[in-house]
């Protein structure tokens, strides 16, 4: 059992564009047997720190420029490659974020779990296999006995992550580095994995460096928290202290800008508010409250009746019921939130409503018209009124069109605006409306950040002056601070334009924040639906309850 002391670590990337100071002079320590959480948003340098410890960074371009990492009295930065090889996997193990790409698709799971023992000659081949099976059972891969020859792709995401944990812990390492180990998982699975990790590490006596962007998750597991921001450590403290009395404005902001169950449905604060950087359109924000929807025809503006969408799987020929007999109504000017885990059919539902996916049975009515029967010109008009915003703002914009082109095109197609000039003017005002500098409109999408791109997507969706927008996980891939900005933007637009949203997300907190009504989906069916407030505070179904309970408590309440 040993502790780790990181002192003045500097890791820079030497790229063609210049030096990126990914980790710039950080100092913290991991006491023996403790779990230290390392928190920061993307680009803060937390993963680089983690990889620097094991010296797994590709060099070039990465270069450790200074500092020391003392592990059991030995400076890892000075250690030779062969020495590092001895340490890796034996004394220091690592769990990576994406268990799919990090497990070798060409080796069986058992083989891979046993491998560290073989590499470090800690067991014979037979013995290693047995130990691996035992370990897998211990981490909860219960069916491993029947699936000794199974490959990673035959496992679910949660099981794969369990296998990763087994692989990391099989050598009983002194230190476990966990790099975003639960980010790719559903909440219910995440909760289980966190519990398991905590329990096992305690049993083995490993210290843990737990890296995550999610303060709530870290609070669940860590004894101490280190917060990083742009390559620097801005604050470190025990978990309790950090939540109770954060000192650094960034940390304060991180805690505050997450939507919670208990928070009210007003605008979320953003990081900029705390850091003294005024965000775009500051004065507009405060005045926004949920405006009343247009009076006429609020009830059942969009009606979904017994909607089913089935897919035939290409090879086996099995029918997958992605959406199974779903009925719901979306009132005009309101937001309906759909919550569900991956594979619950929520995305398909959204696409089916927009007629982007063929419907197997049932129907969708929009203003008392069956959308399946809309043809020709009417279809164009239908498209004009209904828009969608996707999860990944990187993939949602054609990389070969400038922002201006991307925004002009829908207007041309839908004959909005008389002249090109008029349309360009509209582009400018749209960009202003979503909080972007109009001067940037001649640029290409890859020159913008994720949050900015999502704003562009929103602007594009707005360019046809729609009445209804499906937001498909549109903030899920974002850092909390950016997420807050986009959520705020959506609220403002709804207020200003009287939009109707179908807000699809796996994150109950986010949905609760933005939606008026919530429907919980599981395996293609709606499990429970109703008023947002009542669903969250008083869930009726067991599944909804489970979903609630899986959310880290700090995330639910915003306090520790």
């Amino acid at each position, binding site marked *: 059992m040993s502790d780790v002391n990181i002192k003045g670590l500097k890791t820079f990337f030497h*790229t*063609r564009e210049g030096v*990126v100071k990914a980790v710039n002079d950080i100092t913290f320590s991991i006491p023996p047997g403790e779990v230290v959480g390392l928190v920061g*948003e*993307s*680009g*803060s340098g937390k*993963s*680089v720190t983690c990889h620097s410890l094991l010296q797994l960074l*590709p060099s*070039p*371009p990465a270069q450790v420029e200074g500092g020391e990492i003392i592990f059991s009295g030995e400076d890892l930065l000075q250690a030779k490659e062969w020495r590092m090889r001895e340490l890796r996997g034996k004394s220091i193990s690592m769990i990576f974020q994406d268990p799919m790409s990090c497990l070798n698709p060409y080796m069986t799971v058992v083989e891979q779990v046993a491998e560290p023992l073989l590499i470090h000659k800690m067991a014979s081949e037979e013995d290693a296999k047995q130990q691996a099976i035992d370990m897998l059972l211990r981490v909860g891969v219960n069916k491993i006995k029947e699936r000794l020859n199974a490959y990673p792709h035959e496992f679910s995401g949660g099981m794969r992550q369990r296998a990763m944990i087994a692989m990391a812990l099989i050598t009983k390492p002194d230190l476990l580095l966990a790099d975003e180990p639960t980010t790719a998982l559903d909440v219910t699975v995440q909760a289980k994995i966190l519990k398991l990790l905590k329990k096992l590490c305690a049993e083995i006596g490993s210290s843990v460096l737990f890296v995550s962007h999610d303060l709530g998750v870290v609070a669940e597991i860590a004894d101490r928290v280190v917060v990083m921001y*742009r390559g620097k450590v801005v604050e470190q403290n025990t978990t309790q202290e950090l939540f109770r009395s954060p000192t650094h404005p960034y940390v304060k902001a991180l805690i505050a800008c997450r939507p919670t169950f208990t928070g009210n449905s007003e605008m979320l604060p953003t990081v900029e508010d705390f850091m003294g950087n005024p965000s775009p359109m500051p004065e507009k924000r405060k005045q926004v409250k949920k405006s009343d929807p247009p009076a006429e025809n609020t009830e059942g503006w969009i009606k979904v009746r017994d909607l089913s969408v089935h897919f035939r799987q290409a090879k086996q020929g099995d029918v997958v019921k992605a959406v199974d007999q779903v009925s719901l109504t979306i009132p005009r000017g309101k937001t309906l939130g759909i919550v569900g885990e991956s594979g619950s059919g929520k995305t398909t539902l959204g*696409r089916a409503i*927009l007629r*982007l996916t063929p419907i197997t049975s049932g129907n969708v009515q929009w203003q008392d018209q069956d959308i399946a029967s809309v043809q020709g010109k009417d*279809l*164009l008009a*239908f*498209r*004009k009124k*209904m*828009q*969608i915003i*996707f*999860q*990944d703002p990187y*993939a*949602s*914009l*054609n*990389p*070969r069109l*400038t922002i201006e082109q991307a925004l002009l*095109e*829908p207007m041309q*197609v*839908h004959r909005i605006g008389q002249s090109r000039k008029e349309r360009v003017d509209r582009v400018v005002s749209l960009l202003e409306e979503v909080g972007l500098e109009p001067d*940037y409109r*001649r*640029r*290409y999408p*890859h*020159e*913008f*950040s*994720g*949050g*900015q791109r999502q704003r562009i*997507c929103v602007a*594009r*969706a707005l360019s*046809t002056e729609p009445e209804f927008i499906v937001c498909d996980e549109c903030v899920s891939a974002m*850092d909390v*601070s*950016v997420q807050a900005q986009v959520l705020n933007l959506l609220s403002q637009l709804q207020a200003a334009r009287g939009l109707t949203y179908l807000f699809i997300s796996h994150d109950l907190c986010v949905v609760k924040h933005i939606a008026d009504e919530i429907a919980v989906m599981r395996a293609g069916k709606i499990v429970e639906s109703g008023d947002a407030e009542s669903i969250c505070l008083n869930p009726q179904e067991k599944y909804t309850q489970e979903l609630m309970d899986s959310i880290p408590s700090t995330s639910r309440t915003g306090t520790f």
Partner: protein
Amino acid sequence: MAGSESEGAAMSTKAGASLTRDAWIRLRSNRMALVSLILLALVVAFSFIGPLFCEYQYDEQNLDEQFLGPSKQHWFGTDSLGRDLFARTSYGGRISLAVGLLATSVSLLIGVTYGMVAGYVGGKTDAFLMRMVDILYSLPFTIFVILLMVLFGRNFLLLFLAIGAVEWLTMARITRAQTLNLKRAEFIESARALGFSHARILFHHILPNLLGPIIVYATLTVPAVMLLEAALSFLGLGVQAPMASWGSLIKEGAEKMDIAPWLILFPGLFFCLSLFCLNFIGDGLRDALDPKSSKD
């Protein structure tokens, strides 16, 4: 890992750089590709303006000057009929490069359209179209060309249209796979949600994004076609005399390697050089156009 928000905030103020421009910058810093590009430009220049510097015609015979080695008079020497090899090599370059380009364009035209339609329409149409491609793939290729040769034998250009018509199979497969990927991309979904017509989506959104792989494959097809032309020359199925292509010159030279080595040296050098360059440019383009490519 690389940050998005922080980088984005520090975005430079200069005018927008398109992906093409970006790729060009990356290509420029690939030394091999850049050198290849310059060399290829020189080879092309040699083929097209080279004859201006030569006082001989490619088919001008001087039976008293057979098999002369390189000299001041004849820079690359002369061949068995006393024709100037410099003139012939540069003229042959024109033919070989033109043939490569023509056949490649034909294969692109057919392959891209076919693959794009198959990938975009999908379903049964896709299955049927790809089945056809599989059938054609099982047709022994060389054999097909020789049979086409017999049918189109009278016209060289027609022949290479025919070769292009055979070469498109791989292009169709690549295009189809890429289209399938792109079709699922969210920007295509949003284009559909915005009510864009299929034609607009295909030609305005999908096609430009296919350019990368298409260009890469095209640069690799040109040398393949040039090699094929050379192989056909070996069988005597190449260009009509007294025209020459690099392939036919090399074939002639290979037979006289020990008597007149310059006959294979010069055309061979240019042939290999352009193939070399095209391959390196192709590789460079692949790296430059692939956004995932590491920046080291």
